């Protein structure tokens, strides 16, 4: 498939999914009312439902997915492994750990403290992964270090919940760690957008070099790739984007593996060309999954992160098994 066709198709699908997300909800609204509200011409209640509840929620789902999809595709290109992803490598868990710490122990300092803490946590984890990747050439070691990092962050999170000063805030925190975009506002999006934008720019400028890494590090360096610069760009870019996504929605796993996996065959397996479509595909998947979450019957709403894990984890195992049988 040609890249422009793929990108246009994904952009159109994403816009359609965002529009569809505005249609569904606990208050039934027909297409006419939704469009009127989108244009600000609806009733006060309709406008509020669309602009304060449904649109920011759907947009959050898309942005979180896009950040994780782009980070996943970039990390997979850098580490030359289709299983590399912010969730598997412990980046999301580290971001969630730092953000939770701030929420529990000092959340009222500033509105920016949660996104900043989340980004710092993600950057520390990505840097650790990149340093390990540099020292070992074993992808297995790298994935295991990621699993260890993830477990450590989980353990520290449990410790923190154990010692939490305000037990009443535990439910909030617990819900947040499950991963959800419910009740997000444009203000929440605005607070993470600088990190998202910067992360996206860093990943985009590194794309061309990722293609050359297909040939391995020595050959990539010999054709003109500055490996040190590339690693720094991807670590910063993936850290910023993942940290921002965790600050907005908590840790949502596996979408960073699944989306690039679906996209890669459609753009010639080129890591650079898969960055943008993988981001859109991941955003699209999360918007659709979030619509599913809202439409599911039941008293309690299923959390987006839980659904993503329920679908993503078996797919992850499938990818692992197919790789080991072809190797």
């Amino acid at each position, binding site marked *: 498939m040609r890249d422009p066709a793929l990108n246009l198709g994904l952009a159109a699908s994403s816009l359609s999914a965002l529009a569809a997300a505005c249609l569904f909800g606990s208050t039934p609204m027909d297409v006419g009312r939704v469009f009127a509200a989108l244009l600000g011409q609806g009733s006060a209640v309709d406008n509020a439902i669309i602009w304060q509840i449904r649109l920011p929620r759907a947009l959050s789902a898309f942005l979180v997915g896009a950040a994780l999809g782009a980070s996943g595709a970039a990390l997979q290109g850098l580490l030359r492994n289709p299983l590399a992803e912010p969730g598997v490598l412990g980046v999301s868990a580290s971001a969630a750990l730092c953000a939770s710490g701030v929420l529990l122990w000092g959340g009222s300092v500033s509105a920016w403290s949660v996104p900043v803490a989340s980004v710092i946590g993600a950057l520390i984890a990505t840097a650790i992964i990149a340093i390990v990747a540099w020292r070992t050439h074993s992808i297995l070691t790298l994935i295991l270090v990621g699993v260890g990092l993830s477990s450590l962050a989980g353990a520290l999170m449990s410790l923190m919940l154990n010692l939490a000063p305000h037990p009443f805030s535990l439910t909030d925190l617990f819900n947040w760690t499950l991963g959800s975009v419910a009740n997000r506002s444009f203000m929440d999006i605005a607070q993470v957008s600088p990190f998202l934008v910067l992360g996206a720019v860093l990943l985009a400028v590194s794309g061309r070099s990722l293609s050359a890494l297909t040939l391995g590090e020595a050959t990539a360096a*010999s054709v003109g790739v500055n490996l040190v610069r590339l690693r720094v760009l991807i670590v910063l870019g993936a850290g910023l984007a993942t940290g921002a996504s965790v600050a907005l929605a908590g840790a949502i796993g596996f979408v960073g593996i699944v989306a690039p996996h679906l996209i890669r065959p459609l753009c010639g397996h080129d890591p650079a060309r898969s960055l943008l479509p993988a981001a859109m595909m991941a955003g699209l998947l999360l918007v659709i999954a979030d619509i599913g979450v809202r439409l599911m019957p039941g008293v309690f709403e299923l959390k987006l992160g839980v659904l993503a894990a329920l679908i993503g984890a078996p797919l992850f195992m499938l990818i692992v098994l197919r790789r080991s049988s072809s190797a």
Partner: protein
Amino acid sequence: MIDLEAIGITVEQDGKALVDNASLTLPAGSLTALLGPNGAGKTSLLQVLTGLRHPSSGTVSLDGQPLSRLTAIERARKIAYLPQTRAVVWPVKVREVVALGRFAHGIVTGRLSGEDALAVDRALNACDLDALANRSCDSLSGGELARVHCARAFAADAPLLIADEPTSALDPRHAFDIMTLVQAFVRAGGSALVVLHDIALAARYADQLLWMQHGRIVSQGSVTDTLTPARLADVFGVSAQVDGRKVTLQGATELGAGS
């Protein structure tokens, strides 16, 4: 045309000298074969000559300009490198791999401009890959993949080719094919430094031989001057009959290499 000169190259790792005070020149328009047993330091030396590794001491210059002053892109426009590994991580198409040889010319994969596309087509054609251009790399044989990497190196239009065992794991016919390609590259005005383990192949194709042992360059010169039974016995520990460019290996000498 390009001249490469290396003076006093030493590479130390964990207190051991992998390359020990090696000096050499690669004259423009010549094919040089680097010979030496496993562990002689050939790959380390090649990494220094391509600028991928900083030597502990010594300098490399290209046409009188220090290699260390060049950026990665500037270096890549002058030196094309074929490392020992022929890994292609993702199942990309042959044409895409060859196009990566144009990286230093600013290509964006999937969208080649006129000049870049021409260079890629030329390289594909020179390496007899036209029919395979749209095949995925994971469906190729070892010999085909070796040709793909050759084409990738040629596509760069760099005047100097440095290749680390480009014929390893290839059958004789494919080894000849690769060396014929390298020779054609040199006849067309390029220079090449090629590590070879097949001494007969080196004797047949090279303009000059570089002999390496225990990290040192022990001899540099024409095939007829430096290819002798005594040197083969000393460097490789093999007894051989030499007749001009014809070599017949007869077996291991009673004493080991370099003893």
